[in-house]
């Protein structure tokens, strides 16, 4: 077989893995939408905030150092210690759970029974607040995130396949992408089990279907919201780690939410497997299109082609590939 064939396969595999990275972001949206019918505009910023918090804890950074120094004339920056990665991840997760409590206590509690658009607007406000709050807490400089995940092309795979065809340099797969795929598989499997086979998971789905009915059978809406926002915070932390390891932790991390939107449109807003499958279809679709067509039309097709692909699917399945079909009786 020719080198072109293998390069096409390489593009497809890399597209699948990039798609999984998109899915990690999309999952957070799905969790909150599934449980509360709210499109959480702040999910991208949550990923940024979670990653900033992780780096801050890991490197022993003093939170709000700039503010403290300005007010008190001190020169605090670091505590002088470093926290082991695993402990730092657990502490960052703790912060995200605390964040979920605060969101429920000060925002969601006051918006029970409001239209979804009101809740959506509240998450827009939350996103902008968190952008500023994150900068104030941890500073806006680019932070290096190292949690020990290997990065770079897999040399063994490259060497093992480099003689498969003339002009073929071997398959390129990024070690970080492979880790992301493995983590995403475990994450999705856990979330599916949690959602379908645990009492709390079923309560989440009941709240999503009708929060008034759920309240009437004794499900605590407030507890459910805290749980679901905590889960979304956890997913945001995982996404923040994976994307932050690629580019450093910086403001643009919040913009990865833009890559999750076509995934959600395609996979459906309520399906956890849909987020993964949707991500992979978007990833492969955009990479193949860029590979095959991009050079003839000037390149940089990925951003818009992902949305075209999602729209094409929507024409035939408006609820997305895995979304629940909504039947409203009159």
């Amino acid at each position, binding site marked *: 077989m020719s080198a072109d064939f293998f390069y096409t396969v390489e593009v497809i595999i890399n597209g699948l893995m*990039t798609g999984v990275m998109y899915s990690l972001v999309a999952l957070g949206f799905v969790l909150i939408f599934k449980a509360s019918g709210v499109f959480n505009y702040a999910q991208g910023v949550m990923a940024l905030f979670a990653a900033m918090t992780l780096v801050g804890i890991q490197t022993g950074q003093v939170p709000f150092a700039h503010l403290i120094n300005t007010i008190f004339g001190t020169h605090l*920056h670091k505590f002088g210690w470093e926290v082991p990665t695993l402990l730092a991840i657990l502490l960052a997760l703790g912060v995200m759970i605390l964040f979920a409590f605060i969101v429920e206590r000060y925002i969601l509690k006051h918006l029970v029974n409001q239209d979804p658009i009101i809740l959506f607007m509240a998450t827009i406000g939350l996103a902008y607040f968190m952008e500023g709050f994150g900068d104030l807490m941890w500073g806006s*400089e680019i932070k*290096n995130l190292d949690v020990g995940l290997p990065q*770079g*092309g897999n040399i063994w795979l490259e060497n093992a396949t480099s003689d498969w065809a003339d002009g073929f340099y071997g398959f390129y797969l990024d070690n970080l992408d492979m880790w992301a795929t493995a983590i995403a598989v475990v994450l999705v499997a856990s979330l599916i089990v949690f959602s379908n086979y645990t009492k709390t998971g079923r309560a989440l789905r009941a709240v999503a279907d009708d929060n008034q009915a759920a309240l009437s059978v004794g499900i605590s809406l407030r507890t459910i919201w805290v749980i679901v926002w905590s889960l979304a915070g956890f997913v945001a932390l995982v996404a923040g780690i994976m994307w932050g390891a690629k*580019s450093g932790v910086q*403001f643009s991390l919040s913009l990865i939410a833009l890559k999750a939107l076509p995934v959600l449109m395609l996979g459906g807003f309520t399906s956890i497997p849909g987020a993964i499958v949707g991500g992979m279809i978007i990833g492969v679709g955009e990479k193949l299109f860029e590979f095959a067509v991009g050079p003839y039309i000037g*390149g940089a097709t990925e*951003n818009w082609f992902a949305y075209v692909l999602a729209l094409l699917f929507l024409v035939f399945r408006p609820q997305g590939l895995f979304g629940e079909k909504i039947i409203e009786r009159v």
Partner: protein
Amino acid sequence: MKLTKLAAIAVAAVTAASPVLADLVFPALSYRTGPYAANGIPFADGYADYFTLVNERDGGIGGVPAQLLECETGYNTEKGVECYESTKGQGSLVYQPLSTGITYQLIPKATADGIPIHSMGYGRTSAANGDVFGNIFNYPANYWNGASIAINHLLEINGGDISGKSITLIYHNSAYGKEPIRTLEVLAEKHGYDLTLLPVDHPGQEQKSQWLQIRRERPDYVVMWGWGVMNPVAIQEAVNIRYPMENFIGVWWSGSENDVIPAGPGATGYKALTFHGVGDDYPVYDDIQKYVVDTGKTAGAGDQIGTVLYNRGMYAAMLAVEAVKTAQEIHGVADITPAMMRDGMEALEMTEEKMTSLGLPNFGPAFSVSCENHGGPGLGGVAQWDAESGKWNMISDYSPSDMDVIQALIDEDSAAYAAENGIESQCN
């Protein structure tokens, strides 16, 4: 009664916030928030700290204190224009728009208002033609100089011959990123290299397709015109595919610590263009430490001093201060107007002796500005990153760009602008 009190407080607040009329006012259209804050902060700090230094050490410029008016743009063109409109009436002497998009919007406005603009290493390249753009300055170098300096560097390391070599330009898919294309195409005809163009959409967080293509095609050299997150991601991807870093060269907006540190040790060898010195081994930093840092008057946290973008901000402020001094000399008054500032910028002459006396020996190229040439001689150098020491090192002197090619492009573009806007010669 209450209303009267409120009105009095409001008037007092406005008065306190406005600069004293006798001050020399320098607006700073900075961006300390948003997607590009990490790059905007060190530049803004450097710009502000130099004016603080001049005030604290020298008692101002020619005895008149410098006043900085900082306005947050978030690197957003609309906000940048708002900042201009809200500060232009406060005696602003010169604008540094700090964004190519904002610069394009301000060119007609500032020209009409008679306020000079200094877009150093960015903005509209053909503004170097002072005969058309009387109020716009882009010394000491512009994008097209940058493209040519990159090619000259490749010529130098290839014994003067790059015919048959393949060069890929990976660029931010925006007006800024497309700036060098024309120059690189003209230079490709002249030197016989093959040019491939690879655009990356904003923000550039995902570049797998582009780097898989580079891995397949194995160009001899990659030139980058990136900004923001696009830079560290590109450098990381280059490390991932084991592209030889010494063959990867970025423009000066792709050459800060923020761009290389996230890629770790693998980024060693990456090169970037520059039109000013790197590091903090200059006497001026002793003064900044003494008069600004130790007195707690730094604009930011004081942790950016000596970084590439801090140096660039400080350099921009230093050139503004020197232009004020020139204007004061020309007009014989200390409290100059924007029109006098324009004259000072047009007569600016930066010699090595002057740079040394300012505590910045060999920090930037020697150059002079004239009515016809607002862009300077287009000199630039190349710096290389060493991850182990965490430092950029200059690996070349400030060398000239191919002005035969660039001047023709500047003349062509500025003539079209002049015809479109009915602008007559400014130098006759």
